[in-house]
Structures are given as C-alpha cells and as structure tokens.
C-alpha cells in the first residue's frame, strides 16, 4: 500500500527541475520588464507632432490696415 507507483529518481533531479522552473519564471518576468521599459518609436514624422501656435495678432493686422496705402504704378509713374 505504501509503495510508490512509477519509476523513482534521485532527489537531485527534482531539485534541478525546481531550479530550472524558478529560473525560467524569473527570465520571463525579466523579459516582460525589459519589453515594458523599451522605448518604442512610433512612425510619425516629427513635423507632424510639432506644436502649432494658432494665435494671430489681429491688432497688428488692424494697425497695418489703418496705415496709408500707396500703390505706385512704377511703369506709369512719370
């Protein structure tokens, strides 16, 4: 009744197996950590990501409009 079923091996193989399993789990965790912290370059042109200032100084434009406009036709000036 107490006799173990199946083939038995030395305890050292069991210990090596446990160490291999633990090492593989640690390896997986390390790989995931590296993958998470790896810099990923998204393929977008830098010009597209450059912030654009959509502000227009309309006061300056109004100042320009209020200035004296002189359109000189150089060819027919004389």
């Amino acid at each position, binding site marked *: 009744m107490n006799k173990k079923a199946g083939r038995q091996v*030395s305890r050292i193989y069991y210990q090596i197996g446990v160490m291999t399993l633990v090492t593989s789990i640690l390896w997986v965790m390390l790989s995931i950590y590296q993958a998470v912290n790896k810099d990923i370059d998204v393929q977008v042109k830098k010009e597209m990501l450059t912030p654009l200032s959509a502000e*227009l100084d309309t006061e300056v434009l109004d100042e320009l409009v209020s200035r004296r406009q002189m359109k000189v036709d150089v060819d027919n000036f004389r």
Partner: protein
Amino acid sequence: MSESKQTLASRYKHYALDIKRYYRIPAVQKSLSLVLSLFITAFFIIAAIRPTFITIASLQKSIVESEKVLTQLNTKVRSLEQAQRLWEENMGKIAYVDSSIPTTKADYDSYIKTIEIIALESQVFLEGTNLGDALLYSSIFDPYTGTEREGITLPVTISVSGTYPQIIQFYKSLTSLDRLLDPLSVTLATEGKQGKEQQGQISMSLSGNIQYMASKSLLEKALPGKEKR
C-alpha cells in the same frame, strides 16, 4: 599517522555508502513523472509563454505610445482648425502684410517713387535717397520664391530740406506708410547740403531699415561680401 588515515578513509567509505544507501531509500526519491513535469513546464515557459508575454507587453507599450501620439495629433488638428478659421477671418488683411514687407521682390522702385510722392505732398526738397544693396533681377536663381525666405533688412537713408512743419509732415507721412520703416536716427541741421543757408530752412537726414522677404543664402551668392541681417 597512517593508522589515523586509514581510520578516516574507512569512516569516509562508511558514510559514503550510507549516503548512497540513503538516496536509494524510496522515501527520499522523487517520482520521475514529477521531475519530467517540472522540466517540461520550464521548457514551455521559455519556449511558448515567454515570447507571448513579451509580445503582449510590447503591444501594450505600443498602444500607450500610440495614444500619446494620437493626443498630440488631435491637439495639432484642433490648432490647425483654429488657424484655418483665423486665416479665413483675416484673409482680406493678408495683402496688407505683403505690402508692409514684400514677399516676392525688394520693391525698390515703388518705395523710391513713394518717397518722391510724399516729398512732393509735403513740399520738401528731396536731396537724396540711398537704399542698400538688393538683387533686382537674376536669370540664374530667384531668391524671392521658395519656403526658406526670411526677413532681409534693407538700410535706407533719406535727406530732405524744407521748413520745420514740412519736415514734420514728411516724417509723419513716411512713418505711416504701409511699407514699414524702422527709423534708426534722425539728424536735423539748419544748413542745407548745398551750403545755402536760407531763412527758416532746415535739412533732415533720416536713417532706418525696411524689410523684404528673400532667401538669405541665395542673396549671399548674388551679393557676396554684403552682410545681410
């Protein structure tokens, strides 16, 4: 001495045999299937689960980075929409910017004629007008086109003479023109350049800068040795 060595050797042999016997005890041994399960599990973790998890982590990282880029792009799209709205609202005023700082030519002739007209209107005597170097025409290249244009400073010196109110009128007209003039110095003198001292007549020499848009690198080719600001 040799006796003690023999004793030690026999003791070692005894214990070694004991350990061998100890490991042969079924209670100390482990099942082969258990050990194989451990190795197989480790193998699949390395061969299958690790690449899968790395791929998942990389994809998640990629999604996070893409969302950041998407946020930046959305911000830029909103800015572009606002810029387009501002452009449409102020489209009629853009022509005034072009007349203030010409973008397609130095507009040399027109500016000189304008000064002459103002001098006539103000009734001052235009003694001289001097503008800095500018490229009027080149059949080899055109610095007044392209996207690399920048503001080029053109120095201007104007000398007029007349009465004080006429000089003031001329100065006001000149500085309120659509072509922007940045006056740097104004010199007033009671004697004309011709050396004729007249009653109530003064002369004014004005130095300043006007601007136009052109490609600085192409202009430097055309006007070597002339430092453009």
